[in-house]
């Protein structure tokens, strides 16, 4: 672990048991996250992309220790979160917060916006009385809402405004690390841009570090310094954002990028397109060898037999890829 790392994830596993029968015996595992290692540098935004079911959300939640039964190490500023006692972890949570995808489901409909944003302050005993009121008002202003809206209920806000409330709630405890789980995917196009810009502004002003989970590669490119691509519970490629988009190496990354149309017909028409066959296989029973091999357009015999490891292309290049065919 290096000094500039805020979070280090080492060999993280999260299996969800599948039970069946009267006795609810375990018959299989959903291998949502299957041996993932990466780090997040202080002050950077690490984008985590992949299709649904690839384990990106589970990874984010495992870092925050929201699941019991996850295996592997998660270091936060050098402290191993997996060994902490409940009370220690509770205090630790101040430093790491989560912004949810669905602004309609993640706010309690019976609490006012002010109560929602102020709750973390109370839980962690950070402010009371006039100070509490001032801080809540300040949080409202921080996410570009007006403090007089504090008495309104979530249903009185639009989707974009609710997402702002969610952001304010996450930032109330002044965290160092924020996991943004698809924060804009439920929003309209013109509102997405507003939220992205807000997140960037807050990151720069407050010195935050983000793990930005999304399936939209264009959005991730816009906000991230480095990007990790996940497929079926594994990281297949991780590198600097510019490098990934200019020089993708893993066949899955290449296919994923080619599948995203560019909103400019002059540029987009004429781009090479790779149409992958079929769907992502079930994480209960991932294919042997490289997990991407049944859909890969370059697969050879070795891909069906041996699972490739995530390796650095050349030492110091910081471009990690997990494919037998990349030299």
């Amino acid at each position, binding site marked *: 672990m290096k000094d500039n790392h805020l979070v280090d994830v080492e060999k993280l596993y999260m299996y969800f048991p599948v039970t069946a029968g009267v006795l609810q015996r375990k018959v299989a595992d959903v291998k949502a996250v299957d041996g993932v290692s990466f780090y997040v540098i202080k002050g950077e935004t690490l984008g985590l992309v992949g299709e649904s079911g690839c384990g990106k959300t589970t990874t984010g939640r495992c870092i925050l220790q929201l699941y019991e039964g996850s295996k592997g190490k998660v270091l936060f500023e050098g402290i191993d979160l997996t060994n902490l006692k409940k009370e220690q972890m509770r205090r630790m949570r101040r430093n790491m917060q989560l912004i949810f995808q669905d602004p309609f489901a993640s706010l309690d409909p019976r609490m006012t916006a002010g109560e929602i944003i102020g709750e973390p302050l109370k839980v962690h005993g950070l402010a009371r009385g006039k100070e509490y009121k001032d801080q809540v008002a300040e949080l409202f202003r921080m996410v570009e809402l007006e403090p007089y809206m504090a008495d309104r209920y979530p249903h009185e806000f639009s989707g974009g405004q609710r997402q702002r409330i969610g952001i304010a709630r996450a930032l109330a405890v002044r965290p160092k690390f924020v996991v943004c789980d698809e924060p804009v995917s439920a929003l309209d*196009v013109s509102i997405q841009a507003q939220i992205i810009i807000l997140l960037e502004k807050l990151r720069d002003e407050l010195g935050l570090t983000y793990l930005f989970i999304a399936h939209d*590669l*264009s959005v991730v490119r816009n906000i991230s310094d480095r990007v990790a691509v996940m497929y079926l519970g594994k990281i297949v490629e991780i590198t600097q954002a510019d490098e990934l988009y200019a020089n993708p190496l893993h066949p899955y990354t290449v296919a994923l990028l080619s599948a995203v*149309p*560019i*909103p400019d017909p002059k540029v987009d028409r004429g781009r090479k*397109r*790779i149409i992958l*066959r079929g*769907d992502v296989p079930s994480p209960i029973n991932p294919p042997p060898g490289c997990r991407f091999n049944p859909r890969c357009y370059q697969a050879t015999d070795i891909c069906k037999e041996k699972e490739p490891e995530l390796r650095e292309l050349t030492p110091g290049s910081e471009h990690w890829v997990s494919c037998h065919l990349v030299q």
Partner: protein
Amino acid sequence: MTVLQAYIRIKEGELRGKHQQFAYPAFLPKPGASMIIEKPLRSASEMTTVVKDEKVLEVKNLRTYFYTQEGEVKAVDGLSYYVSRGESVGLVGESACGKSVSALSILRLIPYPPGIIVGGEIIFQGKDILKSTEDEMRDIRGNRIAMIFQEPTTSLNPVLTVRTQISEALELHRGMDKVEALQEVIRLLKLVGIADAERRVNEYPFQFSGGMQQRIMIAMALSCNPALLIADEPTTSVDVTVQAQLLEIIDDLRRRFGTSVIVITHNLGIVARYVDRVNVMYAGRLVETAATEELYANPLHPYTIGLLASVPRLDSERKKSLRIIKGLPPNLARLPSGCAFHPRCDYAMAKCHEEYPPVEKVGENHYRACFAELSKLKRPQ
């Protein structure tokens, strides 16, 4: 087992034998292989299927209102556009801009109450749909105009097999018997790239993944060779790699069979890739329409300009700051006076608060509804 059932079993057995030799269309990925399209067939000169003079559908001044507790909601308010034969036309806009309601109006599927089509004409193949009888509509829906809905999970009937659902339309509209229909269902499923169609045809929707369900929706929509296919956000609920598969299928079928397609979406990338002509909607009205290349290169309505500038792109400079459209889309029950976009518009003048700008011609096949002077618009380079 009745005699009829036994007969069908035997016939099915024979058909299975026949279908072993089914040749996969060249454009579909063969089972076991993914596909690379080196040179996508997409530019105006390569488009041979569009018959410009033949308008399959013409929507004129369509107005669909909903009467709710909040008052009159003008979901679609004076919308006009047309679709030529073999053409793919985009309806683009944010949620609640009226794009889906306008599509449902074409099929006369607006729930009444609270919704009602209060005015306008929808000319489909020379005849006004709004004046058709319910019997005539039955012949149009699913037969001459087909629709693919956004959520395949909720649009497919969970208690009927895929075979039953697709063959219903075949038996009704194409007069097939059960055996012929089965043969056709298998053919259609193969056409949309479902492997092992002979076996899977008897499965229920829940046994398919989301992408596969959407393929079934496409197969169903194509079952009667419709003249017009309406795809309402067809790929919003699927992943990007599956999205690419589905859109390629729709686009290739369009080119092969000359079907006209209306693509309803908020994704400007999909529009750029798969659409010939774009209609941009805002608050129930058309704000700009042009050929795709023209619209992206030369947007002339402040909303279109703002929309294009606010989307992050794969190829743009990283951390290039996005430009945003200030404010929120309006509540349709309480529309601002005049041009509904004026509270969010950088070019709004006194006139915009008072009257709605008429649709004016600003170029060849390029129309917009805006008062702002063309020379003053700040457009992307």
